[in-house]
């Protein structure tokens, strides 16, 4: 043993009470530090888990976008993963009591969709093919229209267009556009669905949406537009990445999730969070 170690050990032995008090002090401070950091990490993870359960694990969302934009952004190395929701169109609900939400909005998803955007099933199951459909429960209590599992729906599904004002062409309305008086649905095609499940109001549906979401399974059908739910290798850059590739539609970041991850797109927030951690 070298002379420094010998000196240290003998000094510790010579002053037993001081050594004991020092060891206890170190143990207490390490325990306190561990407890505080564990609590913070645990609480942060709790908030993160709650947010994922509530709103989904997506970090960025492009709404009513086109296939070319999807192709371009998913080729970017900074994009970690994604899932897609295809908007097949809108079907008018005959007996709907909500004048601002008169449609069924048909969205086609694949089996991995719920990885990033939750769907809470209340009854039944998710659709296995494009002839099956899951209806949102709030269609009943908000729209006054009730469907049961096993019901067959024959729907005229088409694209929403705004009312043409003199001199101007009518425009395609998407999930980002609330109901506008005078709008109508064109380019309809008849589709038949069997109701296989009832779900809670999905978080992917905006409160101002003109239609109640109904989910079916994706197949080769061409959609009117697409919603893309993304995760990133560099979540702090999520907004900038989407800005670069979004040619049409609207996009947004899942700011609450990013805050809980410590990867907010707001640098000031991140700086405050890490400063508090350092303190």
């Amino acid at each position, binding site marked *: 043993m*070298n*002379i420094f170690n010998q*000196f240290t050990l003998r*000094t510790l032995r010579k002053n037993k009470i001081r050594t004991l008090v020092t060891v206890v002090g170190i143990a207490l401070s390490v325990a306190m530090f561990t407890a505080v950091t564990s609590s913070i990490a645990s609480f942060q993870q709790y908030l993160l888990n709650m947010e994922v359960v509530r709103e989904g694990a997506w970090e960025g969302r492009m709404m009513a976008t086109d296939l070319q934009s999807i192709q371009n952004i998913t080729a970017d190395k900074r994009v970690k993963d994604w899932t897609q929701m295809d908007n097949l169109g809108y079907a008018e609900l005959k007996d709907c009591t909500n004048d601002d939400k008169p449609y069924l909005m048909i969205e086609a998803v694949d089996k991995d969709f719920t990885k990033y955007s939750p769907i809470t099933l209340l009854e039944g199951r998710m659709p296995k093919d494009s002839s099956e459909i899951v209806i949102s429960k709030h269609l009943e209590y908000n729209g006054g229209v009730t469907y049961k599992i096993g019901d067959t729906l024959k729907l005229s599904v088409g694209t929403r267009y705004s009312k043409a004002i003199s001199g101007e062409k009518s425009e395609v309305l998407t999930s980002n556009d609330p109901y506008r008086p005078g709008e109508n649905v064109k380019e309809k095609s008849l589709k038949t669905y069997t109701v296989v499940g009832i779900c809670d109001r999905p978080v992917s549906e905006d409160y101002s949406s003109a239609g109640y979401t109904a989910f079916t399974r994706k197949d080769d059908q061409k959609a009117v537009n697409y919603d893309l739910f993304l995760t990133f290798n560099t979540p702090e850059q999520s907004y900038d990445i989407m800005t670069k590739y979004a040619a049409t539609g609207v996009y947004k970041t899942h700011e609450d999730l990013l805050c809980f991850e410590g990867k907010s797109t707001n640098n000031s927030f991140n700086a405050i969070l890490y400063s508090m951690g350092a303190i």
Partner: protein
Amino acid sequence: MEILKVEHLKKTYGEGENAVHALDDVSFSVEKGEFVAIIGPSGSGKSTLLHILGAVDVPTSGKVYMGGQDVFAQNEEELAVFRRRQVGLIYQFYNLIPVLNVRENITLPILMDGRKVNEKRLQDMIHTLHLEGREKHLPNQLSGGQQQRVSIGRALMNAPAVVLADEPTGNLDSRNSHEIMGLLKESNKAYDQTLIMITHDESIALQADRIIAIEDGRITRDEVIRS
């Protein structure tokens, strides 16, 4: 052969009006094997000079050359090695390590260097210092004189270029003082060991080859007693 050279050494504490010039342009040199006594009143800068020579303190300006090498041109690591190998320090109050025994205190510079102890040299040293049978004793089990002898052993064990002694007999009675001086003079004569010693005691200073008197940080007298 010149073993130590000091050029325009200055040490100032504080700034402006509060500046204290502990050393004020001190220059001298020492030959190998010389026994130099530094005398002066309290606060004259003797200990400051000794600490700078031993690289324990850093000068404000000036140069110190030991064996032709600029001491303060070295980095911290090199200075630590210099202090271990080139200089032997003996203090008035011994400064032994209380948890190390006599053997470990004497061989401390060698052990810190990570080198192996020359057992024959150590035994010769213990014999010369009249510390036989005390090798495993701790400092608190020794008398003042014995502790100072251990301190001398520690200073001489590495055969340094210069031994610096800061009032080595200041804490001892006359009998022990006489004994310590005898040991130091013996190492000076027998091993051609350069010795620079601070003392208040004129009688001890007169045992040296040369006396340097310092007052208010300046050399006021530099006298060869015996050549």
